[in-house]
């Protein structure tokens, strides 16, 4: 098992490096002079020269590759001289210091922006995933167990629709149904924002009376405070829990529908395959109750591919978060990416893309390892 984990870790190193490199290169390919973008009207040749040397933009991008008058030029003879001293190595060095640069439009370090906005996305993703797993697995099991019944057909039609409906259409339609049509009923739900306007609440450090805490511990507490439902539970502010929860229902369903449909389909086909095996017939022939055969014998083996898909969905949810957060006005990573694209804040885009890429690689790594743990055959091959 240890050897398997080490091998998987080694495989993901080049991929991770590739992710960093792609993000770096994409950010360098952006048209336009970064100096003009940052200084605006104050950009003179002299001030630009100072700006470029201050931020290391006069160095080679990668060994031998120079940016001259916003065109990229490759000089073979310069490769040895710029092998160590170039923008890419400088970028790697700043990454090692957890420095992602400063956001121009928000006037703060990108890492700080990340810490402020990540909790929203994490919270949204968790609830979307819970929805996807609970509904998806249940639908898949019902569908497989009652194969070819009307419940099966209905479920699969529903799953097919779920994969096909765009997140932004589903989100807007749900907002209309729950905020307009059902207005005034007990089913009414807020269509945007994280809390009702004017809602006041205490952060975790305030509620616990530990406002003096600083450093990493404080960052963790602030992070948890920003996940409002977690905050509500930890500090017994149940009105906060309810209000934040009500605001999360629609976005979580909108975001979770595609993975839900995928999980339902995988659960169905995997369970159908397992239910056809000999040992299931043996168990049935022994006279075991059908429910017991399903839960104890079939489900255990059928869940392997489902676990993989659940893991892969986590990363896929991050893409959907861009659309979901934009529609429902949630200030998370997704909305930040969208805002930075509109305001051309490339440093932020670069940081967010890197973060998502790394999360993606790490999640896939965990999925692979957990798969090896669940199914010994994977380890050997």
């Amino acid at each position, binding site marked *: 098992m240890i050897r398997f984990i080490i091998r998987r870790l080694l495989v*993901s190193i080049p991929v991770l490096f590739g*992710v960093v490199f792609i993000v770096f290169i994409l950010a360098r390919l952006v048209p336009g002079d970064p100096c003009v973008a940052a200084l605006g009207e104050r950009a003179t040749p002299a001030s630009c020269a100072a700006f470029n040397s201050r931020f290391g933009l006069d160095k080679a991008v990668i060994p031998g590759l120079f940016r001259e008058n916003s065109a990229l030029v490759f000089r073979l003879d310069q490769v040895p001289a710029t092998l160590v001293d170039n923008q890419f190595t400088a970028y790697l060095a700043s990454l090692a210091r957890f420095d992602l640069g400063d956001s121009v439009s928000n006037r703060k370090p990108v890492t700080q922006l990340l810490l402020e906005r990540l909790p929203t996305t994490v919270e949204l993703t968790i609830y979307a995933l819970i929805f996807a797993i609970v509904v998806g697995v249940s639908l898949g099991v019902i569908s497989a167990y009652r194969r070819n019944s009307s419940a099966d057909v209905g479920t699969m039609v529903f799953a097919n629709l779920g994969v096909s409906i765009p997140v*932004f259409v589903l989100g807007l339609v749900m907002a209309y149904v729950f905020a307009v049509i059902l207005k005034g009923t007990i089913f009414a739900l807020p269509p945007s924002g994280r809390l009702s306007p004017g809602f006041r609440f205490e952060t975790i450090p305030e509620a616990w009376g530990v406002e003096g805490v600083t450093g990493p511990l404080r960052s963790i507490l602030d992070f948890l405070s920003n996940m409002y439902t977690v905050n509500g539970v930890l500090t017994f502010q149940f009105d906060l829990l309810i209000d934040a929860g009500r605001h999360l229902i629609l976005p979580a369903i909108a975001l979770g529908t595609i993975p839900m449909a995928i999980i339902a389909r995988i659960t169905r086909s995997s369970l159908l395959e397992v239910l056809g095996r000999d040992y299931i017939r043996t168990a049935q022939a022994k006279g075991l109750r059908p429910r017991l055969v399903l839960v104890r014998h079939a489900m255990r083996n059928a869940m392997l591919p489902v676990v993989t898909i659940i893991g892969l969905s986590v990363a896929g949810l991050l893409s959907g978060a861009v659309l979901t957060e934009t529609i429902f006005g949630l200030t998370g990573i997704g909305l930040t990416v969208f805002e930075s694209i509109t305001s051309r804040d490339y440093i932020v885009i670069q940081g967010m893309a890197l973060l998502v890429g790394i999360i993606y690689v790490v999640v*896939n790594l965990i999925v692979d390892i957990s798969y090896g743990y669940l199914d010994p055959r994977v380890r050997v091959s």
Partner: protein
Amino acid sequence: MTNLQSDPLHALKAADVETRAGGPDAAVESRLGARKASVRRLLRQRSAVVGLIIIGGLFLVAIFADVIATHPPNLSMIGREEGARPRIPPCIHILGCPADQGQHLLGLDGNARDVFSRVVHGSRVSLVIGFATVSFAIIVGTLIGAVAGFLGNKTDGLLMRGMDVLLAFPALLLALVIVTVLGANLVNAMFAVAIVSIPIYARVTRSSVLSVREQDYVTAARALGDSSWNILRRRVMPNAITPLIVAATLGIGTAVLEVAALSFLSLAAQPPLAEWGTMIGNERNQIFTSPILILAPGVMLTLTVLAFNLLGDGLRDALDPRLSR
């Protein structure tokens, strides 16, 4: 085969198709007979037939868009029609709408353009987007996959690691970043979505190539002095066609969906082009007052994606006899 680093939907499709790629047993049946049998199997799949019907309908709408549409798609009705103003609700004469008012089956949008005509013309845009994007991705992906599988060793490792890196980003996010770099317009968005889907086709082709590379009939062709290109074209690629067709059909749905998402964020199709994603994005704040402006293009978009997904699933089951039970 490892599924490390992949977008779930993409990985699913790639893996699904990949495991079923290649195999010499199809050669047993005569080619014509096999094709007939495949068509018959396809028509037995209820979902595939539904998908085919919807796609057929979409093509008809796209081809005859000028005939079906009641108005030019980009024409504002203000000043041309009595009482025309932005976002008036649908007006259908036989349903009791006063005859002195202009007939608009789905009402007018924010620029007082006929929504029905725009939705009809949108089918053209979306079908072109789907087919063009996937064609580009298939050509590049097939080349990469074929070269990787045929040459093997270091070339293979290098190319496929490159594909892994591409798969290491959520598809939409990578497309978003590429569009930002290239500039926001429809062609760049299609290019970005195509790039993101290249690994799927590369993987499918590569695994087909690997599965037949060592077959006797390929060795025989080589012994007869056939060139590598001819072997690839005549002996290897026919085996890769089936999984590629399936991947492409599913890919069209994905491409339409992703380009529409980029358009919704106003990063792809630009006004006044009648593209469904753009139409939804432009009017998204009107969901509470004029929901039909979002529902009409939304339903069409969902139907299109659904149809290609259904057909793709059906094709996969029909073209692969080993799966039929």
